[in-house]
């Protein structure tokens, strides 16, 4: 094609053209570009040169020359519409632009003039499989195979194409035909050569085809014949076990599965296979249960370290089985003696059965009793257990109680454990989780942060801490922390984008949404969507690579993943959240104007930069900053207000308690403190400036300014987009890929309703009702849909009502919306979320019945085990103002009884969970340190920054008093017990 293009030019230009092509192939783009310009100077309409210029520009820097490159390529096609090169180039530019559909179309046109052009065929095939045009892919692959049957890739490509269109039989034949060509060449190799991985993979692929065709006998034959050639032995065994099982040769299958378990005793799939081969699947009859118990007793002897060999029978056997309790006992003891902090995670599946929970509870009580007795041993043991065993028991017990919703008991246990070994990270993390379940997100974040600081090299603790700070609406702190584990030489934000860190941007987006920062929420959440797009594009390189490397099994898996990628849970969550943001923006257009103009923000940024320039350079995130910045309990008071942290404010309030509240002694001490603080302040002014500058730098680094190269750091441009159009794209993807997801259906409904697409909305509602007929949200959606139809303009309503009428009759009979809703509320009177949904709809369709509905919501029988449901009810009632005041009061009273630790209901509890953080910090844990202790005098350490001496706040005092009272009570109880026993 190059020759034909050059032939249209005079000889001199022809050779320049050839030189240009060579320079392009050698990636010498500058040289190629000057050659192109040279030819175009004489022949401005030479199509191929125009096209090549576009291609060269696009290869040089696609982002910068995208439009110019496409224009040049289009111009070239105008000049010579039949030129193969021009169409090929046009396709290549589209391909660089990741527009694979257009690229495939261009290659199709190009291929018409030269149906056996291998290069274009290859390019076309790659694009077709990327856009999942499997029939087209098969045609192209067939053409490639016939054009060049000696190439391995072409054979395999053809086989894969047949497989993808579902012609497995033909794929198998083609695969056999190709494999038939191998041995002849292989025999020449010396026997000692490297094992042939490619061949091994091909045989396994062949087995996979046979298995998919359910030709068990043939598959077994392949496996047996090629045993020596297949290198991946575990997969070979797995396939063999499966095939034998399907052939009904259960004993042989059992042998295979046992061999697999010997190889890796923790693979659940192999255990299930073994159980199935032994006929132990499904409900266990008493006889089967005995066999199951015996089987695992045997396996445990063989694999004493295997956890799965314990958990499998524990999950499968009923709690009443005689072997259940001893097995559980043995398992738990082993976990505790070994010191396994993750033991609870292994035991979690047992919590599905209340009887099993009862056994666990009983065993735990026994352990605690035995280990806290003077003998310090497990019942029945003749030796003392290790000193740390009791901590692991307590850790498990705390999680056990937490799981059962007994938060206060769980807290008591975990606090005892923390007193025993205050240096154990897992205990603090556990306490954080309990706080989270209590509904106190701030306390949870602070405790998780305390855990994180115990080991700054622990990535998991850091990650958890970041997540918890985001849940506590502190994206600034979270951004600072997440940077600790980002690459040092790049900006943390960019690094997280490169790593496609979906959970972080999802949680960050949610936090911004909760905080009402819509533009930032959009910016974060759209990143998650962008990452998914990147993942889809990333497949492109693998289409040829996998064929070359013969990893066909993995390739098929990747193609499957590409199909189901929109069911990824992070993407789904982000899409649902994005739709919520877009709906908010659509409902309240005033949100779409940023609170501050860009000019204003720029000025602020400049001021901050100036402030930063004045002070010394911010220190790297070293020990100093790290210990200081992120622990509210240790906050320096002169930093108050600089660091946006919930707890700081609380602390300040405590310190600034009015002098009247204090005893005379306290007052004296406070005065002394103030004097010393002043002295210190004067002395350490420089230190303060540095601290302020560091804090300013911290603010600047925060989420608001993530990247210097970012053109739209505040996301304001995103607010200008049409929210419903953006939401509709996501809703379509959600519904298409997850039709069985209630959340996806409801999100799609919200979008369709706002866009006035009543038929689409109806489809979503019907979908939601099909998944969860009793879902309160689906009920709301149904009523809102027909309510909007009723309210719509007569022109619309007439036509739509006609179409929707039969559905309405089918879904709610002849009832009015109010009647239907009343019936719903009557049916679901005991479920708080359902009654709340009904109440919301009462507000919409039958406002006069609100009082009765309110009464129903706070009635004693209306309840929910989920704190979130209570929170929603609380928010709705609070939103009603005076109309809901009485009901709100009632709800709070009931909530306080049900969730005694939740700050939402028990205002006095806010911060109660962080009290012990002070104790953990040494205040006032030791009996020798009295509250209100004077800080050390300054002249002791003239060269050092002031010692971190936190004045005991009013709360600190309360904590101390409580502890003293508890101690006294314990002593009295002990004395009474002693008196009783003697």
């Amino acid at each position, binding site marked *: 094609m190059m020759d034909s293009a050059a032939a249209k030019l005079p000889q001199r230009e022809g050779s320049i053209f050839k030189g240009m092509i060579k320079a392009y192939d050698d990636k010498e783009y500058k040289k190629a570009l000057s050659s192109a310009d040279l030819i175009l100077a004489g022949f401005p309409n030479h199509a191929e040169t125009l096209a090549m210029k576009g291609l060269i520009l696009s290869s040089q820097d696609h982002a910068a020359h995208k439009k110019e490159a496409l224009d040049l390529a289009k111009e070239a096609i105008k000049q010579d519409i039949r030129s193969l090169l021009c169409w090929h180039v046009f396709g290549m530019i589209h391909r660089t632009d990741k527009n694979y559909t257009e690229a495939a179309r261009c290659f199709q046109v190009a291929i018409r003039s030269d149906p056996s052009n291998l290069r274009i065929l290859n390019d076309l095939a790659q694009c077709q499989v990327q856009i999942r045009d499997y029939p087209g892919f098969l045609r192209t692959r067939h053409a490639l195979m016939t054009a060049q049957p000696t190439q391995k890739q072409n054979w395999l490509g053809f086989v894969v194409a047949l497989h993808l269109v579902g012609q497995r039989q033909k794929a198998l034949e083609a695969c056999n035909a190709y494999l038939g060509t191998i041995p002849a060449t292989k025999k020449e190799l010396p026997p000692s050569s490297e094992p042939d991985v490619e061949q091994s993979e091909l045989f396994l692929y062949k087995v996979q085809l046979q298995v998919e065709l359910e030709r068990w006998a043939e598959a077994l034959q392949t496996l047996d014949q090629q045993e020596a050639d297949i290198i991946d032995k575990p997969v070979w065994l797995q396939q063999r076990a499966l095939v034998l099982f399907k052939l009904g040769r259960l004993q042989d299958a059992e042998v295979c599965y046992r061999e697999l378990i010997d190889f890796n005793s923790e693979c659940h799939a192999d255990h299930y296979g073994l159980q199935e081969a032994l006929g132990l699947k499904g409900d266990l009859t008493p006889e089967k249960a005995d066999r199951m118990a015996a089987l695992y007793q045997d396996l445990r002897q063989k694999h004493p370290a295997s956890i799965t060999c314990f958990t499998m029978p524990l999950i499968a056997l009923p709690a009443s089985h005689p072997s259940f309790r001893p097995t559980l006992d043995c398992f738990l003891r082993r976990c505790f003696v070994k010191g396994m902090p993750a033991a609870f995670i292994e035991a979690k599946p047992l919590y599905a059965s209340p009887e099993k929970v009862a056994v666990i509870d009983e065993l735990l009580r026994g352990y605690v009793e035995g280990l806290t007795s003077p003998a310090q041993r497990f019942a029945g043991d003749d030796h*003392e257990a290790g000193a740390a065993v009791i901590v692991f028991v307590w850790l498990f017990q705390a999680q056990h109680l937490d799981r059962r919703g007994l938060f206060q008991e769980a807290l008591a246990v975990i606090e005892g454990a923390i007193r025993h070994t205050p240096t154990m990270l897992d205990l603090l993390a556990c306490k954080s989780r309990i706080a989270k379940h209590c509904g106190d997100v701030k306390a949870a974040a602070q405790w998780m942060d305390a855990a994180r600081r115990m080991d*700054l090299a622990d990535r998991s603790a850091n990650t958890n801490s970041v997540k918890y700070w985001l849940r506590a609406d502190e994206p600034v702190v979270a951004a600072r922390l997440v940077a600790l584990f980002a690459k040092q030489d790049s900006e943390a934000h960019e690094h997280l984008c490169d790593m496609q860190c979906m959970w972080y941007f999802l949680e960050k987006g949610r936090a911004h949404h909760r905080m009402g920062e819509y533009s930032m929420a959009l910016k974060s959440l759209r990143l998650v969507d962008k990452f998914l797009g990147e993942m889809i594009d990333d497949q492109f390189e693998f289409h040829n690579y996998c064929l070359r490397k013969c990893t066909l099994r993995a390739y098929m898996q990747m193609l499957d993943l590409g199909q189901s990628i929109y069911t990824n849970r992070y993407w789904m969550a982000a899409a649902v959240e994005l739709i919520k943001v877009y709906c908010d923006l659509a409902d309240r257009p005033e949100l779409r104007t940023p609170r501050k103009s860009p000019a204003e923000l720029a000025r602020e940024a400049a001021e901050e930069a100036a402030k930063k320039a004045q002070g010394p350079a911010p220190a790297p995130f070293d020990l*100093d900053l790290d210990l200081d910045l992120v622990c509210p309990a240790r906050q320096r008071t002169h930093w108050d207000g600089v660091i946006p942290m919930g707890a700081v404010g609380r602390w300040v309030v405590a310190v600034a308690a009015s002098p009247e509240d204090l005893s005379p002694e306290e007052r004296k001490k406070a005065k002394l403190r103030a004097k010393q603080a002043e002295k210190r302040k004067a002395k350490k002014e420089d230190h303060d400036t540095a601290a302020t500058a560091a804090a300013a730098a911290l603010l600047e680094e925060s989420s608001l300014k993530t990247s210097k190269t970012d053109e739209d750091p505040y996301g304001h441009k995103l607010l200008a987009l049409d929210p419903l159009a953006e939401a509709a794209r996501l809703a379509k993807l959600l519904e298409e890929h997850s039709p069985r997801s209630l959340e996806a259906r409801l999100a799609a409904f919200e979008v369709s309703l706002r866009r006035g697409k009543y038929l689409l909305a109806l489809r979503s509602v019907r979908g939601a009702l099909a998944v969860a007929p009793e879902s309160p949200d689906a009920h709301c959606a149904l009523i809102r849909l027909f309510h909007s139809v009723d309210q719509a303009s007569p022109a619309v309503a007439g036509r739509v009502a006609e179409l929707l009428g039969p559905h309405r009759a089918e879904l709610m009979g002849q009832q009015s919306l109010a009647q239907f809703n009343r019936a719903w509320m009557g049916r679901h009177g005991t479920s708080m979320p359902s009654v709340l949904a009904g109440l919301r709809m009462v507000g919409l369709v039958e406002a006069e019945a609100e009082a009765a509905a309110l009464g129903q919501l706070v009635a004693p029988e209306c309840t929910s085990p989920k704190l979130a449901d209570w929170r929603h009810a609380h928010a709705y009632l609070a939103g009603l103002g005076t109309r809901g005041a009485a009901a709100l009061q009632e709800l709070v009273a009931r909530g306080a009884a049900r969730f005694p630790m939740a700050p939402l209901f028990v205002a006095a509890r806010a911060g109660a969970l962080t009290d012990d953080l002070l104790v953990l910090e040494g205040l006032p844990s030791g009996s020798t340190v009295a509250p209100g202790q004077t800080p050390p005098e300054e002249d002791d350490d003239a060269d050092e920054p002031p*010692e971190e*001496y936190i004045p005991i706040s009013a709360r600190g005092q309360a904590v101390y008093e409580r502890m003293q009272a508890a101690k006294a009570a314990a002593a009295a109880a002990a004395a009474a017990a002693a008196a009783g026993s003697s």
Partner: protein
Amino acid sequence: MAIPSSKIIVCRYDPVVERHHPVPELKVNYGVHVTEKNIEQLRKLNIACFPVRYGEQFYRDVVKRDPKLTILAYYADNLIGAIGCRVEENKLYIMTLCVLKPYRRMHIGRILLEKMLEVAAADESLTEMYLNVQTSNECAMAFYSQFGFEKDAEIRNYYRRLEPNSCFVLTKDLVAFRQQRAAAAAVAAPIAAPAPVAPSPAASD
């Protein structure tokens, strides 16, 4: 002096826990070095064991110092005890030695001190090792006397916030200690030449 004397607190020995049976052997790992990554654990340990808090600077100095001067005791991946020293010209001063209460009476403090004595003996420039003990803390004095520490002087009004507020200085002559060791080694050498216990990590899980 980097740390003001008023802040130096010596471990209060708790009353002996009664035990009716042999103490189980703990698999303690002494090989972890103190770094800025795990310094918070040492802080939590000291808070739990000592009645007064050390300042930020104390921990910054610990991290900066020669890692040999701080020995940590880890059990089941948790810090349960530590000894921390600093060099003052030709003397080695023991700043802190503590073990979490539930893990006491298991020879962890003894091993920590023995390991530190090894460190001290290896550095020829050191002539003396010393520490301060609250005058009421007989338990600690008994403990240190086992290792050849001798009561030197009493300092009145040493502690600002503790009662009694005076302390003893306990010292050990390192030159004599080295001579004793050499003599003992010479006697033992012809028989079996038992190498002294290496201060390297003995056990790890």
